[in-house]
Each structure stands twice: as structure tokens, then as C-alpha cells.
């Protein structure tokens, strides 16, 4: 018998008390008690938070994301076996978007694969699929000489997103952040030095240094700063130790240092509208265990020329047979907001598909949606109807991503 990981009833990140102090509106998300938005009294609310990320910088607690480490002689072979992108192309310090697939070519989850060392990889996975993913990864790497560890509870993950995230990070790296431990902490003193990230490229990461003292015992360790995110902007994700003292100290410092760049705390509401404008998929919506890679239009992250990985065979067959539906971007033509799960009708009123994610787009100031429709109807400009409270409201297929960050010089 192997112990199977199960999810507890309701989980909190190490920053839960900090969010509540800020007056965040809390909601349950995939079993987590998370901030959906912060109050208007501190300049927040979904729209303000969304705009801060598009024009300045926003700070998100994304500690609910999971982390799986694969380490050992066959770490690369096991990552190659369980994921669809080609991890052999990664240098140490580099990351890639990828996905874990079922044998039928549908999604276990999407992941970011980080190459930590010669024989060491870190998969960052979704909150709602933590246990499923870990059990699946462990079960499918048994034949490899590779240790699989669930590090999900070890990190507080903070995302710093927006065109001014780089300015915030540069300022943060100027002096180390010092903190004293209190009763219950495993340290009496800790100092965190943020790395210089001015030359760090998108989808690369670099370590910062942590010096920890506990009584007379001193210890040096590292933490990860990655230039990644889920907003369609430039930005960073930092992974610091998940004790409450360190987590709160880092979060507060990031917000403080960020003040001059207009930094605001951002909740899951803005995280969703930002990723939707950028057409970044969300598990359970654009991708799931019943949707395959070609339908989701994630072709460029799927390297079928790579030797056998789980799902490859089925995907080759599906490509040869041709897919019947495709993910498209919709813009509402008439007044109305498409929401997740709404039905898509053709112009004659016959049901032809469904909305996977739909919302007002605060930066674009349009009502947009992602939807699955029959492949023959998937061309740009095609007019369709979204059924909103019993009425067919006109929408048209538009090129995606809806939003693309401007090129900066």
C-alpha cells in the first residue's frame, strides 16, 4: 500500500491573516480560502487591480499552486516521459510551459517545468489538482531512477506582475531583508537577499540567498526567483520559505517597495481577467481530461517528434483523423456578457458549442470569451450567438490573444 495524498477540507496559505488584515474579500477556490479582491478603500477592486498589472505592478499570493520535484539519475527521462514539451532543451535555470497528459492525449494538468540542476526538475502545478498531479506523477515515474517529492507546502509563492515589476525587483535587490523569528519559528534571525534580475530573460530563473541563524547554528540556503507569470505581462514569481513570519515579511516588503511604482495587492478575480485577456488556459475550463492538445490549440508546446511520452500515440492518431472542435476567442457584438458554461448557438439558433471562460475585459473594455466551437465554424470573423438568460446575443470570433503586451524598448 502506498499512501495516497488527499486534500484537507479547506486550506489557507501562510498569508491568509495578511489578506484578512488588508480587508480582502475571501472566497473558496479549489478548496482554498483565497482573496478574490482587495477593498476599494486601498485602491483595489478587480478592475483597479487588473489595470495596475497592465500599467504598473500588482502583487498576488499564489501559494496555493503546487510544486513537485523530480531528482535523480533519470530525472530528465522521467520528465520527458510524463510531459509533452521537450525538457531536454532546458538549460539549468530555464523553464518551459508544458502539460501532463493522459494516454488519450487529454490533460492531467498544465505545468511549468523548471530545470533546477543537472538531474533535478521542479514542476509547478495548479492548486485544484495538487493531489491528483502528485499521485499521477509518482505512479508514472516508478520505472525511473528518480525521486519524486511533493514540496507544495514548502513555498510561499508571490507573483509580482506588470511593466514595472522589473523596477520593483531591482529596488528589492538593493539591500537584504532582515527579520527576527518569533516563538514557533525555526529561526532566531533570517536575512534574505534578492538577486539582480535586470538581465534575467523571460522564462528563466535565478536563486536568491537566505542566511538563517538559530541560536548558534548558521545555515545558508537559496530561494527561486523566476521571470514567469499568468497575466500576459512581464513579471516575476518568487518562492520563499512558507513559514508565516518569512511569508508576511516578504509580502509586506514587496508592497512597501512597490508603492512608488503603484503596486497594489491583487486577488484571484484580477488573476482570472488578466489571464483571459492573454488567452492563458485554465484547468477545468480551456483544458481538462476530456479536451485534447490540438483542440486546445497548444500545439507549439507539444513536441510529438520527441520519443514516446504519455499521450503521444493518441495525439498522432487524433491529428491524422482531424479534430472536430477548436478553442476560439469571442468578442460580444451586442450588449451582454458571456459567462463560463453558457451555450454557443449558430446564427440559426442551433447549439454548436459552449463558453469555457467569459468576462468583461477591464483593459480592453470589451466583453470577451473563450469557447469551443465546431472546427468548420472556427474562422475569424464568424458570427455566432451566445445564449444569455434564454436569449441569443451576437458575438464574433476574433484573433487571440485578445491582449498582447506592447513591445518595450
Amino acid at each position: 500500500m502506498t499512501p495516497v495524498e488527499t486534500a484537507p477540507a479547506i486550506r489557507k496559505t501562510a498569508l491568509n491573516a495578511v489578506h484578512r488584515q488588508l480587508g480582502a474579500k475571501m472566497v473558496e477556490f479549489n478548496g482554498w480560502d483565497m482573496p478574490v479582491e482587495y477593498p476599494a478603500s486601498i485602491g483595489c477592486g478587480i478592475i483597479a487591480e487588473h489595470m495596475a498589472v497592465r500599467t504598473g505592478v500588482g502583487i498576488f499570493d499564489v501559494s496555493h499552486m503546487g510544486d513537485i520535484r523530480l531528482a535523480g539519475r533519470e530525472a530528465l527521462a522521467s520528465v520527458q516521459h510524463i510531459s509533452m514539451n521537450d525538457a531536454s532543451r532546458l538549460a539549468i535555470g530555464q523553464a518551459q510551459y508544458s502539460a501532463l497528459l493522459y494516454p488519450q492525449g487529454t490533460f492531467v494538468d498544465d505545468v511549468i517545468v523548471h530545470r533546477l540542476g543537472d538531474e533535478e526538475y521542479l514542476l509547478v502545478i495548479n492548486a485544484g489538482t495538487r493531489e491528483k498531479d502528485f499521485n499521477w506523477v509518482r505512479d508514472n515515474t516508478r520505472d525511473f531512477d528518480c525521486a519524486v517529492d511533493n514540496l507544495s507546502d514548502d513555498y510561499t509563492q508571490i507573483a509580482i506582475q506588470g511593466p514595472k515589476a522589473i523596477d520593483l525587483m531591482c529596488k528589492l535587490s538593493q539591500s537584504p531583508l532582515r527579520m527576527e523569528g518569533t516563538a514557533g519559528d525555526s529561526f532566531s534571525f533570517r536575512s534574505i537577499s534578492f538577486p539582480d534580475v535586470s538581465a534575467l530573460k523571460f522564462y528563466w530563473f535565478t536563486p536568491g540567498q537566505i542566511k538563517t541563524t538559530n541560536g548558534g547554528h548558521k545555515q545558508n540556503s537559496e530561494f527561486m526567483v523566476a521571470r514567469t507569470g499568468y497575466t500576459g505581462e512581464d513579471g516575476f514569481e518568487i518562492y520563499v520559505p512558507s513559514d508565516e513570519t518569512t511569508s508576511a515579511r516578504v509580502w509586506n516588503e514587496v508592497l512597501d517597495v512597490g508603492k512608488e511604482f503603484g503596486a497594489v495587492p491583487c486577488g484571484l478575480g484580477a488573476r482570472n481577467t488578466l489571464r483571459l485577456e492573454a488567452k492563458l488556459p485554465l484547468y477545468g475550463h480551456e483544458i481538462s481530461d476530456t479536451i485534447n492538445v490540438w483542440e486546445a490549440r497548444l500545439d507549439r508546446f507539444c513536441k510529438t517528434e520527441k520519443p514516446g511520452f504519455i499521450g503521444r500515440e493518441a495525439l498522432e492518431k487524433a491529428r491524422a483523423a482531424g479534430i472536430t472542435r477548436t478553442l476560439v476567442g469571442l468578442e460580444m457584438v451586442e450588449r451582454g456578457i458571456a459567462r463560463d458554461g453558457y451555450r454557443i448557438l449558430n446564427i440559426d439558433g442551433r447549439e454548436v458549442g459552449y463558453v469555457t471562460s467569459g468576462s468583461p475585459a477591464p483593459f480592453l473594455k470589451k466583453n470577451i470569451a473563450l469557447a469551443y466551437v465546431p472546427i468548420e465554424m472556427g474562422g475569424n470573423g464568424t458570427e455566432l450567438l451566445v445564449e444569455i438568460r434564454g436569449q441569443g446575443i451576437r458575438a464574433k470570433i476574433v484573433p487571440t490573444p485578445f491582449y498582447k503586451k506592447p513591445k518595450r524598448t
Partner: protein
Amino acid sequence: MSYPADFKYTKEHEWIKVEGNTATIGITTYAQDSLGDIVFVELPKVGAELAAGKTFGSVESVKAVSDLYAPASGTVTEVNPELATAPEKINKDAHSAWMLKMSLKNPGELNSLLSAADYEKFVAEEGGH
């Protein structure tokens, strides 16, 4: 949060203010706070008949859609034209950003609605803030 004493309230978070035979309707500050940024309000046209307790429109925030329930029966006489282009006025001041006015069919219906004090107690129990 203060709720005007001369309004009556529903458990679905609408307010109603009566002057003579005319009533003005909106949603409460508690409702706008729960909804978050309001981006779209769908209201009936002038002349439409509203039935107490039945839906008469909807209000949408970035996150969600909520139905609006008529606090009383009557005929719509005026719709706030500002909300079509500036629905965020409800977030700024829910108790003055009215949605519609109507002539009441049966003013006696108002007796079953909540007073400001009772509504305040009701939302304190429901939401804790």
C-alpha cells in the same frame, strides 16, 4: 455602513423609497460591495409591469450575474439613464444610484419589507461585514 431610515429593504438586497404613490428602487450598499465592480445593469422599459418578489432585471459585476427582485408590484414610470453608460455609480453610492421609479399597485405590500434596522441586522448575520 448606514442604511437610510426612510427606505424599506428586501432580503435580496434591494431598497425602495416611497413618495406618495411613486416608489424609487435600487440595490443596497451591501449588495454592491458583495458584487464588486459593477459593469452592466439590465432594466425593464418604461411601462413594464413589475410583480412583487419576481425578477425584473439583472446586475453584472466583473465576476458574477445577479437577478434583481421587485420589492413591490407596479408600473415602471422612469429608468435611470445614467446606469446604461456608468453602472459604476452604484459602487460609488448605491443608495443614491437609483435604478427605476414606478407607480405602486398595492402600497400595502411594503408592510412586509424590512426596516433599515432590521435589514442591517439581517446583513450582519448573513455576511459578517
